[in-house]
């Protein structure tokens, strides 16, 4: 036990002296988080902004007011409607003083009623976003409704309904209440905010580099000859490998812990229950460390090892959504979900949404399975460095 600690402590001391671990484990990921957050900052706003719509409508049109009124009744979007002339509507959208410019043509109401062609022209202005999309969908719906009324009236006329009842018929068709009601439920939130995903993703990516400073040190020791000396020491040979694993583990845990903490302080992210987060970190570090054991066996030289490590780290990080969320469904989603980085991010999503220890079973199981399979695989990989 004493020897294990002697080796671990000595390794940690060396890794701190040789500054690369600090650069890789802390400086680079923090710098990346900072830059990413800066660039994504503008896009990260999730709430719907108030919208101004410049509308030009023909005077005395019977159906235009319905269309205009619908704009102001959209759930969740605060819409100001300015009635202006057609040219001004377009101009305001172009100049950015209105998000949308809507031009309802002369004779709109009559055209709709008679099923004749009529076009509502919308100009989508600079900086238009989600809110404009919502309003467009709403207008589309209203037009379909108005048209449905007209079609019903026409069908009624065709089927012999008296002309004076047709208006009521159209009205009834368009506003029939005995229809389909949507009640909006609330979903459990297991997602990280954009900033949260960024912090978690970078922490996950660089974890795969940080743990290399422990286990992959075996290769450096082999190259510099100290491994032979260690093996001549009066201790079990397994102790050397255990010490390296422990170094990986400690470095990984500390670095990830620091990154998540720093990330939550600087970028206002909350990852939820510290205990659950700590459990997730432990599992992620275990999974990442097991991967290093495979590399340590497969690589002949330190250069090969670091190349292999970088390849695996980037592939796992990208497929695990460390840079941008990957959306897949079905089998692909399942496969991607087995990635420890994806499981780590998913687990942090659950804890940030208020989940505790009991809720992170799936990601924890995925990461631990990965760790066990990785360790087993590392025993099966042919030992290219001989006698490790």
């Amino acid at each position, binding site marked *: 036990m004493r020897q294990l600690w002697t080796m671990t402590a000595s390794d940690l001391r060396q890794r701190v002296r*040789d*500054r*690369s671990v600090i*650069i890789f484990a802390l400086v680079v990921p923090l*710098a990346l988080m900072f*830059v*990413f957050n800066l*660039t994504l*900052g*503008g*896009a990260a706003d*999730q709430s*719907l902004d108030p919208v101004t719509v410049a509308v030009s409508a023909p005077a005395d049109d019977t159906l235009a007011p319905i269309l205009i009124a619908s704009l102001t009744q*959209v759930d*969740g979007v605060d819409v100001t409607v300015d009635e202006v002339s057609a040219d001004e509507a377009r101009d305001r959208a172009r100049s950015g003083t209105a998000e949308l410019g809507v031009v309802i043509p002369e004779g709109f109401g009559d055209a709709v009623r*008679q*099923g004749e062609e009529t*076009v*509502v*022209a*919308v*100009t*989508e202005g600079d900086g*238009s976003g*989600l809110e404009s*999309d*919502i309003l467009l*969908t*709403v207008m589309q*719906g209203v*037009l*379909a*409704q*108005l048209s*449905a009324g*007209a*079609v*019903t009236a026409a069908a*009624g006329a*065709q*089927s*012999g*309904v008296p002309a004076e009842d047709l208006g009521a*018929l159209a009205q009834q*068709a368009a*506003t*029939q209440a*005995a*229809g*389909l*009601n949507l009640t909006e*439920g609330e*979903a*459990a939130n297991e*997602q990280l905010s954009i900033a949260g995903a960024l912090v978690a993703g970078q922490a996950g990516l660089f974890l795969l580099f940080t743990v290399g400073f422990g286990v992959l040190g075996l290769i450096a020791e082999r190259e510099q000859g100290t491994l032979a000396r260690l093996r001549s020491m009066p201790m079990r040979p397994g102790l050397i490998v255990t010490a390296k694993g422990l170094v990986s583990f400690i470095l990984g845990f500390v670095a990830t812990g620091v990154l998540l903490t720093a990330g939550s302080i600087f970028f206002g992210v909350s990852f939820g229950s510290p205990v659950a987060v700590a459990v997730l970190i432990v599992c992620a570090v275990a999974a990442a460390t097991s991967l290093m054991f495979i590399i340590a066996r497969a690589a002949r030289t330190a250069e090969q090892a*670091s*190349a292999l490590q970088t390849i695996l780290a980037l592939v796992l990080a990208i497929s695990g959504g460390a840079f941008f969320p*990957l*959306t897949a*469904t079905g089998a692909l989603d399942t496969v991607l979900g087995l990635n420890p980085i994806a499981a780590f991010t998913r687990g942090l999503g659950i804890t940030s949404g208020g989940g505790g220890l009991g809720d992170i079973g799936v990601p924890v199981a995925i990461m631990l399975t990965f760790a066990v399979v990785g360790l087993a695989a590392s025993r099966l990989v042919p030992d290219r460095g001989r006698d490790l």
Partner: protein
Amino acid sequence: MRAARAIAAVELRRFLRDRSNIFFVFLFPLLLVLVIGTQFGGGGGNGRVAISGTDSALNNAITASLEDDDVTVTRAGAEAVRQQVARGRTDVGLFISPAAATAYDAGDPVDLEVVPGTQQGTQATLQRVRTAVAGLSVERGQVAALVGAGIGDTQARAALADAAAASTPPELTVVDVDSITQEFAGLGQFDLGAAAELLLFVFLTSLAGATTLIQTRRLGVMSRTLGSPVSTGQALAGHAFGRFTIALFQGAYIMLATAILFRVSWGNIWLSLLVLATFSAVAAGAAMLIGSLLDNDGAASGIGIGLGLVLGALGGCMLPLELFPDTLRTIAHVTPHAWAYDAFAQIQRHDGTLVDILPALGVLVAMAAVLLALGTWSLRRSMSRAL
């Protein structure tokens, strides 16, 4: 010059001997272009809705209506749908209970539960679901109104079909004058990603090369080189030229491969190559500066990768520059990436000419010159330090 060429040739050979470089230089960038292109390029439709419920007329009608609206619809069990919504795998979950399906068939009022996700953009998809459901409502309203007026159900449906065929529904046309939408209009699915990845990787690979300069010093090869009639400037030029050739080669390869595999349009190929060449020179210069400033190759590779990623992110290689806030976009132009990005944008999207990209080229050349000069000075210092 002959000395510089000889050094460059050796550096190239060393680079190609290392098999892991094949992955980083040739496979990885293409993989990323593919992933980013399929994830973000081409709009990706109008959102994703996951529907839970048995196969029913209601289910089919809603699915058809949403798909007409270019919404991607998937089906799964109720629990799975809730999971998907919670994890952001879908924008909106729609739950059709057996009771709702029966009520719909019977013409009774139908209650449906809809659950929007919490991520960005779900409200727009939610509105699409609302509109689709309202559309179904209206269809039923039409029939009900006619039946109410004393017309038989079958006859009412037939009359509605006739009337619908005879009328032209009002149309909504949208002219998008948003500058970002306009900027990206006409851009192929992979075009944006390809240019960004090109810049990111050319720079990253070059900076990683800083370590070879350190190794050369440590192994004593540099002392040997300088012991022969070769000046520090020539030696550095040789190394820089080696990195430059590698960068140019990788960049040209990415251009060619993406053009063939993903049909990426690089505009005027000569101008694009010119941008690539000046950018490669900056990358080589930066590698030389790092390689001569630092003595520890582990730290240098850390700084190289870190700097490569950070500058890439800041220079618009991960999120398009056009989406940056204005001040940040200005700041971004401290990076060579941003200038090269602008130049590529000119060439790819606006058929820019040499005159259009001249300012960007000028800045890149100036950056390269400054970095190479600093690198030579610093290498001279580090050599005298070592001796």
